[in-house]
C-alpha cells in the first residue's frame, strides 16, 4: 500500500517536471538564443549555443537610435511605479470610504461599479485616445499613467476584503480620538497589506503589459515603454535577426521577472480570491 502511494507520487513528480520543462522551453529559447550569432540562431536545432557571444547585447546597447533600451526601461519604471502607487492609493481610500465610512448612496455606487466592471475597456479606449490627442497630451507620461486610475475592479477587490475584516480595532482607535486618516493609515493599511500587495502586483503587470493603449498614445521612440519599444523592434528591420530580438526581449522582461520572483509567494493565499465569493 505504501509502496503504491510512493510510486504514484513519483509519477506525479515526473509528470510535473515534464510540464515544467515545456513551460520553460520558450524562456530558455529566449535566453540562449540571445547569446547566439546570426548564422547559428537561424539554423540551430539545439537550445544551447555552440559559440557563446555577447554581440547581440553590444549592438542593442550601442544602437541607441533604433533601440534606446535604457530610455525605455526608465520610462517603464516611471510609468509603472507612479501608476501602481496612484491606483493602490486611490482605490484603497475609495474602498475604505465605501466599506466603513458614512458615504451617501454607497449601496448604489457599489452596484454601479459592478456594472462598470462588465463593460469592456475597448468602449473607452478610442474616445480616450481622441480626447488626449485633442488636448495635445499624446507622447507624454500623462496618458501613459492616469487612465489606469479609473479602476473599478481594484476598488471592489479592496472593498470585499474590508467588509470581512473586523471593525473592533478601528473602533478602539476612534474612541481614543484618532482622526479618520490616521486610523486608515496606521491601523487599516497594515491589516490589508496582503490584498494591497495583490492589487499592486496585478496593476503593475497590467500597466507593464498593456500594448494597445500605449501604442495609441505614444509614437515618439524615446517616449516608448519596454513593451511598445520591443513591439517596434518585432515589427521593424531587426526582424531578420532572432538573436538580436531575443537579447532585446530578455532585457525587457528581466525587471518584471525579478519582481515576480520576489512577490509571487505573497500571492499564494486566499487574497487573490477576495471578491469572487
Amino acid at each position, binding site marked *: 500500500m505504501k509502496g503504491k502511494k510512493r510510486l504514484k507520487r513519483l509519477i*506525479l*513528480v515526473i*509528470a*510535473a517536471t515534464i*510540464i*515544467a520543462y515545456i*513551460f520553460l522551453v*520558450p524562456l530558455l*529559447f*529566449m535566453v540562449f538564443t540571445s547569446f547566439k550569432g546570426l548564422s547559428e540562431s537561424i*539554423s540551430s*536545432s539545439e537550445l544551447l549555443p555552440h559559440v557563446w557571444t555577447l554581440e547581440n547585447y553590444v549592438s542593442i546597447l550601442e544602437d541607441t537610435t533604433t533601440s534606446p533600451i535604457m530610455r525605455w526601461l526608465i520610462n517603464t519604471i516611471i510609468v509603472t511605479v507612479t501608476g501602481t502607487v496612484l491606483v493602490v492609493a*486611490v482605490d484603497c*481610500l475609495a474602498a475604505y*470610504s465605501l466599506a466603513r*465610512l*458614512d*458615504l451617501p448612496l454607497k449601496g448604489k455606487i457599489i452596484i454601479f461599479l459592478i456594472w462598470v466592471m*462588465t*463593460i*469592456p*475597456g*475597448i*468602449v473607452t*479606449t*478610442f*474616445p*480616450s485616445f*481622441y*480626447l488626449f*490627442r485633442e488636448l495635445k497630451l499624446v507622447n507624454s507620461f500623462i496618458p501613459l499613467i*492616469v487612465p489606469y*486610475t*479609473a479602476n473599478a475592479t481594484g*476598488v471592489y477587490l479592496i472593498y470585499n476584503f474590508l467588509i470581512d475584516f473586523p471593525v473592533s480595532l478601528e473602533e478602539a482607535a476612534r474612541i481614543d480620538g484618532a482622526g*479618520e*486618516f490616521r486610523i486608515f493609515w496606521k491601523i487599516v493599511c497594515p491589516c490589508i497589506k496582503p490584498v494591497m500587495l495583490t492589487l499592486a502586483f496585478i496593476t503593475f503587470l497590467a500597466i507593464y*503589459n498593456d*500594448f494597445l493603449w500605449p501604442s495609441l498614445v505614444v509614437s515618439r521612440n524615446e517616449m516608448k515603454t519596454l513593451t*511598445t519599444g*520591443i*513591439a517596434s523592434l*518585432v*515589427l521593424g528591420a531587426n526582424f531578420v535577426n*532572432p538573436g538580436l*530580438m*531575443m537579447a532585446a*526581449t530578455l532585457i*525587457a*522582461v528581466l525587471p518584471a*521577472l525579478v*519582481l*515576480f520572483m520576489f512577490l*509571487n509567494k505573497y*500571492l*499564494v*493565499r486566499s487574497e*487573490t*480570491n477576495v471578491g*469572487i465569493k
Partner: protein
Amino acid sequence: MKKKRKTAGVFFAPFALCFVLFWLVPFVYGCYLSVCNMSLTRGNQGFIGLGNYIQIFTAGSVYSEAFFRGLKNILIFVVTSVPLLVIIALVLALIVESLPEKVKGIYRTIYFMSYAVSVTAVSAVFLWLFNGNGGYINNVLLSAGLINEPVSWLEAQPFAWIVLVVATVWWTVGYNMMLFINALNSIDSALFEAVAVDGGGFFSRLRYIILPGIRNVMAYVILMTIIASFNMYGQATLITRGGPLNSTKSLIMEINDVIFTNNNLGEGSAMAIIMGIVVMLFAMCQNWLSKEKKEIKEVSGS
C-alpha cells in the same frame, strides 16, 4: 455625523474624480462619436444618427464585412482558447496541490512565471519558435528528419490559430492556475477525509468536493478568460499580423484599422460599442448558466 459624511466624501473624491475623467467622460464621448460622422484628420462632420450602426448591419458594406470578419475570427479564438485556459489551469492546480510540500513552490512558480512576460516578448519568442524561415521548431523537425522542408506555421491555417492559442495558453494559464490553487486551499480538508473514509477515488473527490467547492472561482475564471480572449490584440498583431488572408485578424484589429486606415472614428466607435454589447451578452449568458447549474444542483441535492 455631518463631519463623518464629509470625511467619507474626502476619501472617495480622488477615485470619483479619476473615474469621471478617465472612464465616464470617454464612455459618454464614445457613445456620442458613434452617432457622428467623425474622422481623426477632418474632425467632426456632424450628427448622422444611427448611420454608423446601419453601416455595420448593411450586408455588403466595407464596414459590415470588416466587423463580421473580425467577429467570426475572435469567436474562433474564444471558443478554442477559453476551454483550454480553464481546463489546463485546473489540471495544473490539481497537480501542484498534490505534489510534496517541499517542491510545490518551485513548480507553482515555473507554471506562473510566463505571466510576468509582456505580450510583445511572448510574441517575439513565439515568432522565432514557429517562424517558417529559420524558426526553431522547423530546425528541430528538419534535423530530426520528421519533415523534409520547412513548414510555414504562420502563413497557413489551422497552424496560425494553433500558434496563437498555444502562445496565449503559455502566457496566461498560470494566472488562472493561481486562482484555482487558492480556491482549492480554501476547501475544508475534513470533506476530503470523509470521501477517503467512504473509499472514494480521485474522480469522486473531483466531482463531489472539488468542483462544487470551487464553483464560484470557476465561474469567475471563465468570465474573465472570455473577456480577455475577446480582447486579444497583441499576439495576432505581432505574431501573425492578422494573416494569412486576414483570417487571424481580431475584432479589435479591425476596429483599429477602421479608425486609422479608413480614417473613420465614428464608425470605429460604433463597432467598439457593438463589440462591448456582444462581450456583455456572453458574460451574462455565462453568469446565467452558472447560476442555473447551481439551482439544479441544489434542487437535486435536497
